[in-house]
């Protein structure tokens, strides 16, 4: 059977991996190429790289890092951050990305997802949605979680899937960095609406959180950053624990 996936996420700024707490107050962690090697050796099923650089120089550094990682690590690589046009898709795919994650870019240009899906296939297009509860509603946020778009998250996600997004990475702003478990209520709501793979992001604090996550129908992958980067939990240890508890894992 198909396995559940464990995905470390590397937020890269100016050539270094950083990890934000509630999307603010980033801290320097380490060299992304070194970290990618380590996670690959530890059994990561996929790697996600987010480019959180704003400058042109930072972007060039990012694509250089991506190229180096993709030249030596042969597991799926997803790239996000600063993807606003088909040219951005092209730029990261040429550097070895397999999937491209869009967030604000899709909110700004509703034509981006359908155009990318048509050119590269749905399997290549990941919708990354930053979602937060506002007035009892799940709302989509833009600009790295700083701006409330006023849009209903479930409608937005369903619309993107209908337009060709092949996978959803759901980041709960409410649980991000809190380390008290994934946002299961939000994940269940999304899983009830769409039938493409869902990557859960935001809130992982311990291995039990992942076991609870995969007990929920329709969740395919768990993504985390801080707990892996700070070695609070190793990928190997997590996957062995999940396998022992009946979750299908690639060991």
């Amino acid at each position: 059977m198909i396995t559940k996936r464990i995905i470390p996420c590397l937020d890269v700024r100016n050539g270094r991996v950083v990890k934000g707490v509630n999307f603010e107050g980033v801290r320097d962690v380490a060299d992304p190429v070194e970290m990618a090697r380590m996670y690959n050796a530890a059994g990561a099923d996929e790697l996600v790289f987010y480019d959180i650089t704003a400058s042109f120089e930072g972007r060039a550094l990012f694509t250089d890092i991506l190229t180096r990682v993709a030249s030596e690590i042969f597991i799926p690589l997803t790239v996000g951050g600063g993807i606003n046009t088909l040219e951005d898709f092209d730029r990261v795919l040429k550097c070895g990305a397999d999937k491209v994650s869009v967030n604000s870019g899709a909110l700004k240009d509703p034509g981006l997802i359908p155009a990318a899906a048509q050119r590269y296939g749905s399997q290549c297009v990941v919708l990354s949605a930053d979602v937060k509860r506002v007035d009892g509603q799940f709302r989509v946020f833009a600009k790295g979680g700083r701006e409330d778009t006023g849009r209903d998250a479930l409608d937005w996600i369903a619309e993107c899937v209908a337009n060709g997004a092949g996978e959803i990475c759901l980041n709960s702003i409410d649980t991000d960095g809190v380390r008290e478990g994934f946002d299961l209520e939000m994940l269940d709501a999304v899983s009830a609406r769409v039938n493409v793979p869902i990557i859960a992001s935001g809130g992982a604090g311990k291995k039990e959180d992942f076991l609870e996550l995969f007990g929920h129908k329709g969740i395919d992958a768990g993504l985390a950053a801080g707990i892996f980067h700070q070695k609070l939990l190793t990928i190997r240890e997590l996957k062995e624990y999940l396998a022992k508890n009946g979750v299908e894992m690639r060991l």
Partner: protein
Amino acid sequence: MIAVIDYGVGNLFSLRSSLKSLGLEAVVTADPAVIRAADRVILPGVGAFGDAREKLTAAGLVPVVQAEAARKPLLGICLGMQLLFDKSYEYGEHQGLGLVPGTVCPLEPDLTGPSLKVPQIGWNALQILRDDPLFRYVKNGEYVYYVHSYYAKDCTESTLAVSEYSIPVTGVVRSGKVYGTQFHPEKSGDTGLRLLKAFAEL
């Protein structure tokens, strides 16, 4: 030397890098003369069947691939594997290369598990049904990475390995010197590299 056929479909970065990391000499090409001179051929591919078939035809490569397939080991990967079959029902009906008997059909209507998603995206265990030199360095049950919405059917005779997705999904086929993998060896970590190494030694 391995000729990786470049007909404008999909991303060849990882395939090229993985062959390079194995120390294998590979050239990405659409030149029939280079393909004829190579001792092995890889037919990659990502995207839609009809479009890929058209591009292969437009590049004048259909007769070249068909002729070389009888002479040297050829490996089709993902959509490249699907192209090896007689025909596909992806958005209409399209003729394949006819190198492996069978048809390519949508996964969704055949799945029996209610919560299974299409495309199948992820790592699945390879069940080896028939031993083959291609599996020289790969053990039964190792995981490989799949991304697909269509799969090959009516090809029992040529199926070497499957992966379970409520139904046995065709994972590896062989007909003579022609091989195909539905999964991406270049994205299947160490397992995939070992499979490519075995292909290079066939």
